């Protein structure tokens, strides 16, 4: 069970989440689960041949972490939209921190809608990813 719509305020935030240091195993496990086996994320010679010092992390992994974390806060059944924009690469060994806050609330008949903005920041303080999630309460049938 997530938060109740009536308990939310603009600026309200879920408890910050930190993961890492991200391991190769984390990345390989995510790639296997998702089915995206792009070798640039786990194959050292391939990544170096593509101009990277090491395999770079797969972007959908922290995107999945961010939106599952936000979904847990609002209640997964309330999620109606999630969006991710990548700003910079991350690499194994990085520690990633997720922060979010409510930016807009709209009350509707018997419920409401909530807009959340979130960021993913590495240990150097650089934003590697931005995310947005929309949650809705009180639709017919819920």
């Amino acid at each position, binding site marked *: 069970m997530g938060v109740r719509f009536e308990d939310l305020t603009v600026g309200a935030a879920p408890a910050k989440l930190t993961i890492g240091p991200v391991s190769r195993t984390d990345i390989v496990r995510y790639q296997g689960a998702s089915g995206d086996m792009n070798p640039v994320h786990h194959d050292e010679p391939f990544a170096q041949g593509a101009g990277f010092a090491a395999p770079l992390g797969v972007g959908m992994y922290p995107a*999945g972490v961010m939106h599952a974390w936000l979904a847990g806060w609002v209640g997964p059944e309330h999620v109606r939209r999630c969006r991710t924009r990548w700003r910079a690469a991350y690499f194994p060994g990085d520690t990633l921190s997720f922060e979010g806050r409510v930016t807009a609330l709209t009350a509707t008949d018997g419920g409401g809608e909530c807009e959340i903005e979130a960021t993913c920041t590495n240990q150097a303080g650089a934003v590697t990813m931005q995310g947005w999630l929309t949650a809705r309460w009180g639709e017919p049938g819920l």
Partner: protein
Amino acid sequence: MVDRRADGLVGEAFELDVERGKVREFARSVHAADRAFYEGDRPIAPPTFLTTAFHWELDVDGAAIWERVAMSHERGMHAEQEYVFHGPPPAAGDGLIARSRIESMYEKEGRRGGALTFVVMVTEYRNAGGELVAEARMTGVETAKPPTEEG
């Protein structure tokens, strides 16, 4: 190098069965803590779960149309990804029928010069009754130079 002929392409339909074990595997891989992703006969799928379409579309000739875009593995990047749900997100036990289309291709000048080519692919997910239940919108970008050199 992006193949402009892929613009407007519509793929073949493919099935995506939302399975309990797959929901659990995916939830664990993104460190999802909420028990709704793990418990009950029909656990709910995490918000980005439909990315597992990779496991389904590759078995249907003409479904995985992103390959036809021919974006470079070395210079191609995932720029944005969006999922829209027309109701609660999918849950284990749901049988979905999906179809992808290349929605647009456009160019922009990069911050350090050199053209960036953006490609947007939309995948629609319908239930057995044909109702639109979810949409995935993926934006890929190909740089003229390796992405590490792009500010």
